[in-house]
């Protein structure tokens, strides 16, 4: 393995900008790494060798011309639910298996404009519905720390690619934990900005009011660089927020002095077993050791998170996924009439979990049930926002587990509910639209597998959140103590 692939995005940008190394050199090294390991790991559904080389040449020319590019030469994994013009964009679904996107998502375009190099389109749970990547209809992605285990999901391909040095930055999307949980499983930083901070234009929708694009990286600094490049209003997305973005990369800090960090009373970790309980208690002590004041905060609605989420997200997805009807693009299975064509196309094109959520959502929105389910869930959602607002009166950030266990083995979660429970700690932040991230915080189990600490901040306080995570990462360096198996 060429050591170039292990460099952080920040280092690559420094070296490429100073012309100590070319974007081409970085790209060739990473493409070689992909060719070496990805047949075993399956991070990418589509590899973009030609596209990557073209972009590398373009970046080298711009750097030679004196341009300062904030992501010059940074190898990028793009989750395959984001459009990149001219590339296959599948959402890991048979229904879009051969669809070529004719346009580029705003977030992806901003990364490319900043000098990032698209290495490939990474695997995910079909339409981002899942927590293990096992719901991908198009391929298996393995956890680089233990190939018998899942990488997490739904952004498992990007998380694994970054962990296995097949990219320095991976783009993910987080609806209920889909960046943070795979980040934790793969020992990388997974960062979900405030809802509306990064444009969703070109992100294939799962649940519109929750979906948010964010980066997976090996360092907090890299997450900040990616965020700075992507965040900000987009006229193509009316839910993107028109409000100045405080640069995060320049707000990184080395201690937590003066910060009050809330520990959620209801997120009792004892139920996760003694080892994991001890691990999180130690993580909280590490925060305190850096100067933070730990305070207990209440989140009385915590236990209603899953129920709320699994009404709102399926309701929105049942409508968002209606367009995959075989009429204009993607899979079509002919039938005797248009109705039969719809049925056969969707029966063949969608996997079991996608169908399950479409059914739940259709039911929740049906006449006679709408008020009891959807409206009630929306009301519960506002209670989450209120509870967090109240909690943040007592603290600056909240610390919590990112997942309730380390990565599990394939096929070990046989019922959907136990899979849904993986997102128990991440869903409340999603419902409230908060910025949150997971940062490596140690290892648990046999073999020892990575775990993630989740930090969350009030709306729009990404700079503070990343600043604190940076201090934690720098002081503890947990990620560096692990070794990938490839």
């Amino acid at each position, binding site marked *: 393995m060429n050591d170039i692939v292990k460099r952080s995005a920040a280092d690559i940008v420094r070296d490429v900008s100073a012309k100590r190394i070319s974007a081409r050199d970085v790209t060739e090294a990473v493409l070689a790494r992909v060719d070496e390991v990805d047949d075993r790991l399956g991070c990418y559904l589509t590899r973009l060798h030609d596209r990557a080389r073209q972009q590398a040449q373009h970046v080298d020319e711009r750097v030679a011309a004196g341009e300062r590019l904030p992501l010059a030469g940074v190898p990028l994994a793009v989750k395959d639910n984001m*459009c990149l013009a001219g590339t296959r964009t599948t959402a890991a679904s048979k229904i879009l298996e051969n669809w070529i996107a004719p346009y580029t998502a705003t977030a992806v375009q901003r990364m490319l404009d900043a000098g990032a190099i698209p290495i490939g389109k990474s695997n995910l749970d079909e339409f981002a519905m899942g927590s293990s990547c096992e719901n991908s209809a198009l391929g298996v992605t393995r956890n680089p720390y233990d190939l018998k285990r899942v990488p997490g999901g739904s952004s498992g391909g990007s998380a694994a690619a970054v962990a296995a040095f097949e990219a320095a930055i991976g783009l993910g999307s987080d609806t209920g934990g889909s960046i943070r949980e795979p980040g934790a499983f793969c020992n990388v930083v997974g960062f979900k900005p405030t809802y509306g901070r990064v444009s969703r234009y070109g992100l294939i*929708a799962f649940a519109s009011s929750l979906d948010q694009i964010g980066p997976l990286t090996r360092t907090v600094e890299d997450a900040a660089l990616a965020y700075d490049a992507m965040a900000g209003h987009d006229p193509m997305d*009316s*839910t993107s927020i028109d409000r100045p973005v405080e640069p995060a990369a320049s707000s990184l800090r080395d201690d937590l002095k003066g910060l009050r960090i809330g520990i959620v009373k209801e997120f009792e970790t004892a139920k996760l077993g003694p080892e994991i309980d001890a691990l999180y208690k130690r993580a909280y002590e590490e925060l305190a050791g850096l100067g933070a004041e730990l305070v207990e905060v209440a989140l009385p609605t915590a236990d209603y998170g899953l129920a709320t989420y699994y009404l709102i997200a399926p309701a929105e997805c*049942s*409508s968002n996924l209606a367009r995959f009807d075989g*009429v204009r*693009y993607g899979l079509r299975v002919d039938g005797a009439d248009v109705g039969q064509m719809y049925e056969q196309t969707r029966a063949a094109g969608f996997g079991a979990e996608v169908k399950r959520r479409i059914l739940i959502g259709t039911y929740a929105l049906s*006449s006679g049930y709408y008020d009891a389910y959807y409206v009630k869930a929306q009301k519960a959602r506002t209670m989450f926002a209120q509870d967090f607002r109240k909690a943040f009166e007592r603290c600056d950030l909240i610390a919590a587990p990112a997942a309730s266990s380390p990565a599990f083995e394939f096929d070990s979660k046989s019922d959907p509910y136990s899979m849904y429970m993986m997102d128990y700690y991440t869903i409340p932040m999603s419902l409230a639209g908060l910025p949150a991230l997971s940062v490596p915080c140690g290892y648990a189990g046999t073999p020892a597998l990575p775990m993630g600490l989740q930090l969350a901040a009030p709306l729009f306080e990404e700079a503070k959140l990343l600043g604190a995570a940076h201090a934690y990462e720098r002081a503890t360096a947990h990620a560096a103590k692990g070794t990938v198996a490839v």
Partner: protein
Amino acid sequence: MTVKTQYEAVIGIECHVELKTRSKMFCACANEFGGEPNTKVCPVCLALPGSLPVANAEAIRHMIRAGLAFGASIPAFSKFDRKNYFYPDMPKDYQISQYDMPLTLGGTVRYWLEDGTLKECKLTRIHLEEDTGKSMHGGGGDGRIAGSSFSLIDFNRAGVPLMECVSEPDLRSAQEAVGYLESLKRTFVQLGVSDVKMEEGSLRCDANVSIRPAGSSELGTKTEIKNMNSFRSVLRAIESEIERQTAIMESGGRIVQETRGWDEGQGETHSMRSKEEAHDYRYFPDPDLVPIEIGAALIEELRKTIPVLPPQRFAKYREYGMDAKQATQLVDNSALADYYDASVAAGANAQASMNFVLGDLSRLANETGIAASESVVTPAALAELVTLVEGKTINSKIAKELLERMWAGEGSPKAIVEKEGLTQTSDTGEIEKLIDDILAANEKAATDYKAGKTNILGFLTGAVMKASRGKANPALVNELLRKKLE
């Protein structure tokens, strides 16, 4: 002998009107009729994966103006909802519409019947939504879906802004329904919010029709009539449906609540689907669009742009003494009506000005192909001419000649009259002298008159007028002649 029950019809109209905007409702594609199929499309209006709608501000302004024109209330808060159902020419398989919080509520449409009777119909609401594409069925079936072997879809119209106006069931006859629709059409054209071309499908309407014993205040079972493609078909379809329902009631039958299609060729309605087959549209707020907040300042700004509207004009013209046909004719030529109103504002007698505007001025416009409003004759100059006639300074014959000279660019009528001494003479002595001369030259005429051939009077009057070079007051000439002859 049994007394036959008299029935009255109760009719409400729902009509869809395409708004005239530069771009479509939720994307930047041109909003234009026609064109090669699928040339006015983009990722958004084709509902490609990942695309997002952004609401068109111009369409929202049109809606507010339409609402203000009918005296509707404009709520401070409005939102878009998704109406979910599968249809091949509806790209997202949901329509973005407005469910429970439309842009305008209430209001009254004033309209008139052919005989000039002024009527009112209350509006329930006007809401904003998007149009669908158009399907064309080929391979047999004569353009109908049944029997065709394939269908083609043109999405140029998909996403065109559409306002849906829903009336209260205030209409009592097919004639009233047409009067209401004509008034809507006139108002929208006057406001410039739509071209309202039924032949291009930019106005489409459905009618809810029921009957009840005259004098009853209860509503009967209604049917919804669709497929009416012109005002004439609205008239025929509603008349036919009232007849059908009346026949059922008179034979002791029961009306079934259903949707019925108008068959123009057969001149009757046919059952399309019953209420039991009605869709559950699973409306819910569109999470891709932010709520619309409308401030008082915007409403006031838009209120100032509302011109005098056709029903107000019609009522005023009727007060001026125009017959219903004349008034309608003038209202429907808004440039001429503006011209006419300006002449009245400049001091012209309303009725006298009307005679010129609908008479000689319209004739000149037709002959020369120049609209009155585009001609050199200003409304003020016309007012000057009208005032000269009304003040008996000139007679109508001179006035007619003067108007032609004004049209040819000879300038102010007053100046011409003064320069050429065209002032009407009512000097009795002068006129008697002319009469004496004429009678002397026409002795036989005088004899004939005395013998009872009184129609010779017209000839004699003309001769005197000619001798006066048109300046004599014709009424006075007539009176003095009669005296001399008797």
